């Protein structure tokens, strides 16, 4: 160990360093391993239809996880995405019955913008902890949705054909949702890597005082961020209602914790300053495949949950081990 001469680096170390420089590769490998396990357990399951289904369900999760990625980069978190998505989905499905779809869309996005704005102001101006702020607005949002729900019980709900097409449709084996997702994902990746706004997110998460001294106005960035996050969540809600086709008052709520998990599995630090969106997308895929894997396993529900927890922990730990230096 003490020799400092130039000895050939062992293959294992080289491989590790290679992976550490390209953190996406180990993630993809983990994903492939899960798929292979699935295929071994249920030969034949990995077919075109299954892949399309997996992608369909991974996309809403991935977009919400994108909200988490961006907020987590600044050291925040957005727990209101579930409520926001549910709200816009529910409002869309109920308003489209009597309104023009475009009007319904605008109405559906209104609460998203509003909640994002409130979150942004709370976090950016009043410096409320994002966890508490977004939790609070999500409670308020849920309450408002319940009140709203009563006014539309009689009118029923309808899923606009376009959303159903986008949510569930498959063209040449590719889910139509990709038409929305691919540009969106590209935009997020580009924003984070190559725009001033993206830079600021990383810098703020790393050292907020330093950004202030460089002339960055925290509240502007944070407000823009939370509004963006909310709008993305709203869009996710519309996509999700197209996929599930049943508006309910808790539609997207179950996606919140997985969206945080997907971002973390994808390598974004919850303390801010580190991470990226491509990892998050794979994180979302990993979680979706894992859910399938556990669904088809024959075992008591309790054991299934234990396994889920352990695998999430293992995947994250393994990934960290690989990517971490030394």
């Amino acid at each position, binding site marked *: 160990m003490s020799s400092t001469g130039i000895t050939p680096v062992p293959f294992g170390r080289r491989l590790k360093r290679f992976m550490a420089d390209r953190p996406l590769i180990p993630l993809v490998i983990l994903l492939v391993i899960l798929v292979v396990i699935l295929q071994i357990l249920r030969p034949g399951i990995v077919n075109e239809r299954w892949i399309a289904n997996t992608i369909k369900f991974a996309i809403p999760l991935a977009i919400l996880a994108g909200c988490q990625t961006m907020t987590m980069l600044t050291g925040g978190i957005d727990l209101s995405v579930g409520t926001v998505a549910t709200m816009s989905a529910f409002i869309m499905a109920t308003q489209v019955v009597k309104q023009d779809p475009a009007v319904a869309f605008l109405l559906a996005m209104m609460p998203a913008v509003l909640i994002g704005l409130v979150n942004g102001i709370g976090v950016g101006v009043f410096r409320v902890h994002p966890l*508490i702020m977004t939790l609070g607005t*999500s409670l308020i949002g849920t309450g408002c949705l319940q*009140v709203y729900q009563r006014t539309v019980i009689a009118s029923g709900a309808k899923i606009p054909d376009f959303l159903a097409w986008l949510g569930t449709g498959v063209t040449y084996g590719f889910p139509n949702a990709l038409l929305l997702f691919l540009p969106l994902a590209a935009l997020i990746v580009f924003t984070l890597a190559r725009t001033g706004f993206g830079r600021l997110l990383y810098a703020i998460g790393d050292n907020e005082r330093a950004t202030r001294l460089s002339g960055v106005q925290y509240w502007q960035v944070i407000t823009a961020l939370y509004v963006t996050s909310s709008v993305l969540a709203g869009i996710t809600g519309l996509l999700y209602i197209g996929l599930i086709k049943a508006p309910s008052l808790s539609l997207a709520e179950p996606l919140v914790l997985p969206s945080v998990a997907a971002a973390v599995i994808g390598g974004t630090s919850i303390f801010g300053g580190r991470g990226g969106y491509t990892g998050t997308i794979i994180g979302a895929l990993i979680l979706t495949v894992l859910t399938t894997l556990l669904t088809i396993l024959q075992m*008591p529900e309790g054991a299934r949950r234990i396994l889920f927890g352990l695998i999430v*922990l293992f995947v994250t*730990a393994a990934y960290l081990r690989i990517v971490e230096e030394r």
Partner: protein
Amino acid sequence: MSHFLRRQGWVVGLFALLIVLFIATRIIQPAYGSNDFGSLARAVLPYAFAVAAQTVVVIAGGIDLSVAAMMALTSVTAASMMNGASEEYALFVVPFVLAMGFALGALNGLLIVVTRVPDIVVTLAMLFVLQGAALLVLDAPGGGIAEWLKALISGTVPIPGLPDAIDAWVPKALLVLIVCLCIIWIPLRRSRLGLSLYAIGSSELAAFRSGVPVKRTRIIAYALSGLLAAFGGLALTMSTGIGAPIPGPYLLASVAAVVLGGVALGGGKGGLLGPIVAVFVLRLVRTDLTLLAIDPNVTAIIEGAIMVAVVMFGAFITMRGRQ
């Protein structure tokens, strides 16, 4: 005095808020009496333990998303062990369940330290694991509990030397809460371990350089959290007489109360008193909303708004104080 106010100002403010709420309650329902206060104390009990569990880890710079699942697991374990068993058997069950909470909490901490995965993820994974374990113990609500344990939190204790009128305002549940928290918190707060908890929460690097065994302290913080959550699980079983494998709404409530109680989510600051008072405030708000027969859907809006408003107010005065 100024030190005291600067440090405890938030808690004092919360106390004032609590008193205002009590007065409001008496105005809304003039018949609100000692029995009703006893109900409040019993309602507070599981929340208070959940919040205490959360407080310890938050002070140490972490967060524990598995509190509610831990409560569910300890609760079903206690309920299924005591189901149909003798009264004396419970004397064994209680320490066993507490030890289990402590050990599982320590496991949380150990996983965080060993895997170096962020605490929020480890405890999220443990949330599923503990929930699963709870379902394996009892797949539906059930089980039983020793009568003496149930009796432990209902009614009041006659305190020698105090007139009955005052006795009546000291429900057993409140005493149990105070005693349990005091025997854990006061020695902790006074010990070097307690300081170490604050130290690693405030600055891990500085703590490490001050000779604090960071890993060990972190594990102990989570173990204590597990222990307190086990108290919470027991409290659930004590009040309902059964164990339910589905976790109750204690996770988010605990985080909210911790923040309302003046404990910074970054760690290193605050105490246990604030969060506990915050729990009383939140529960009393709920009582008032019920007494007022407010539309239940509006209740959610009000509860959310209170949370946001109080925290914003706190943030606002710290901002003012800084300038």
